[in-house]
């Protein structure tokens, strides 16, 4: 009986100010951890894939077209796209905004590195959200439909980046996104108890810094390739590829691609 009887409830007057822990109540632990995980997989994994794919731009419009064709040839690609990119991204973005608006940054009072990182994770997250919304709308859902015309991918991006303002936006967003991802990996390891020790966190910080820097340089290289290296790219380097959702890529692609490839490589 003594064990079952709870202690007298705390004082009748409710506390002012910040409220105590709601022990065992609610589901915010699940959503917050899902938010953390979704930033690594699938979103982070997709970011790596996207930047690696974009790096093919360094090999010219045809190489990039092949990469776009390959990705759009994946089985159930529209299902993959929605379930592993759009939906997780939308959740991560919206829940991220919810997290950000509830924080009270005080880096002006306590100008410490971790505190700066806390603020930057929110700032870069908002930048990435605004940019990605614009980027997905214009590149995926507006203008030439790239899944049906992979050969037009390079030119579409080139026309986009011809505007210096948009070019600046892309460069800033590339840096912000890579920062957000790299620091996000570090935060993931710290919060999930993978790197509890101070030394472990410091060492892993260098690893994350290296990952972010490499990704960022690769991404900026792709921008360089589009803007500087291959000016006046043809509108569609694979015009023969018929429009349609399903196609047999390995048989059709190499034969059709031969002639324009020589033009592109010079």
């Amino acid at each position, binding site marked *: 009986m*003594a064990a079952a009887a709870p202690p007298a409830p*705390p004082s009748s007057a409710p*506390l*002012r*100010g*910040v*409220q*105590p*822990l*709601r*022990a*065992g*109540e*609610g589901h*915010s*632990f*699940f959503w*917050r*951890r899902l938010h953390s995980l979704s930033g690594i997989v699938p979103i982070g994994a997709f970011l790596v894939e996207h930047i690696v794919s974009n790096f093919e731009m360094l090999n010219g419009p045809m190489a990039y077209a092949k990469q776009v064709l390959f990705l759009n040839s994946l089985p159930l690609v529209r299902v993959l796209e929605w379930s592993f990119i759009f939906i997780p991204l939308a959740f991560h973005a919206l829940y991220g905004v919810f*997290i950000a*608006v*509830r*924080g*009270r*940054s*005080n880096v002006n*009072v*306590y100008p*410490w*590195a*971790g*505190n700066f*990182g*806390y603020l930057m*994770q929110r700032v870069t997250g908002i930048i990435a959200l605004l940019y990605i919304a614009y980027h997905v709308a214009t590149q995926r859902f507006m203008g030439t439909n790239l899944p049906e015309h992979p050969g037009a991918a390079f030119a579409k991006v080139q026309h986009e980046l011809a505007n210096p303002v948009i070019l600046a936006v892309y460069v800033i967003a590339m840096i912000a996104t890579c920062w957000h991802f790299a620091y996000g990996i570090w*935060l993931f390891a*710290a*919060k*999930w*108890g*993978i*790197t*509890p*020790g*101070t030394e472990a*966190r410091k060492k892993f910080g260098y690893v994350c810094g290296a990952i972010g820097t490499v990704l960022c340089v690769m991404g900026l290289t792709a921008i360089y390739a589009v803007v500087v290296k291959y000016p006046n790219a043809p509108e569609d380097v694979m015009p023969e590829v018929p429009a349609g959702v399903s196609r047999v890529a390995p048989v059709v692609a190499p034969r059709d691609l031969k002639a324009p490839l020589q033009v592109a490589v010079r």
Partner: protein
Amino acid sequence: MADQQTIKVSIKRQASPDAKASTETFEIPYRPNMNITSLLGEVALNPRTVSGVDSTPITYDSNCLEEICGSCAMLINGKAMMACSALVDKLLGAAEHGQKPDLSKTITLAPLSKFPVVRDLAVDRSVLFENLKKVKAWVPVDGSYDLGPGPRQVPQIQEQRYPLSNCISCTICMEVCPQFNDATGFVGAATIAQTKLFNMDPAGKVLKEERLRALAGDGGIQECGFAQNCVQACPKQLPLTEAISDIGRDVFVQQVKDFFTR
């Protein structure tokens, strides 16, 4: 008295929890090696503002005056510090011993910003006590009969626990935390560190699962944004981020276990 050196201190005051706050400035005689406690003592000796208005001594929580009771946390020059261990010379720009402090600078004092003010610099920090109760931050040894000696505590565990046992419940870790606010109701680093302390206790670990479940509730460990201000500001140098990381893993493992087995 004419060549007596003085310093100025500007203090945010509030007569009662619902009264309007105002700022009073005092000029007090300077002595080398003062701390904020002795500075507040000088104000109490002669509570007259620089404009000559008679005022009252400053109310603030204090007890041990040697950074062990955790009472006298306040905002000193805008930053959360313990009044007893905040040195006036250092606050006036003499970073190292022997340097000359700049006596023209004014020191500002204010109550902790995230806790309801009781009066002047005294705030109500009951939320920490409530949080400690929520995670059962104790060793359950009460019984209606003699329970006998407790289990042996090996030195390796004791060494890990000792730094966490240094917590003085000053709430500075919560004050400096960007996530500790009305919107999140975050539990704060101190409670998480105490969870680790008692989970590692050979007798206290019987409540481990209950503590970990409590910390998965709203306002729990997931609200940590890892800004790491807590570990920077902690006057007792508790390994707070390490505790948050470790307990974050334990809470997650407990949630997964509960999901599949409960």
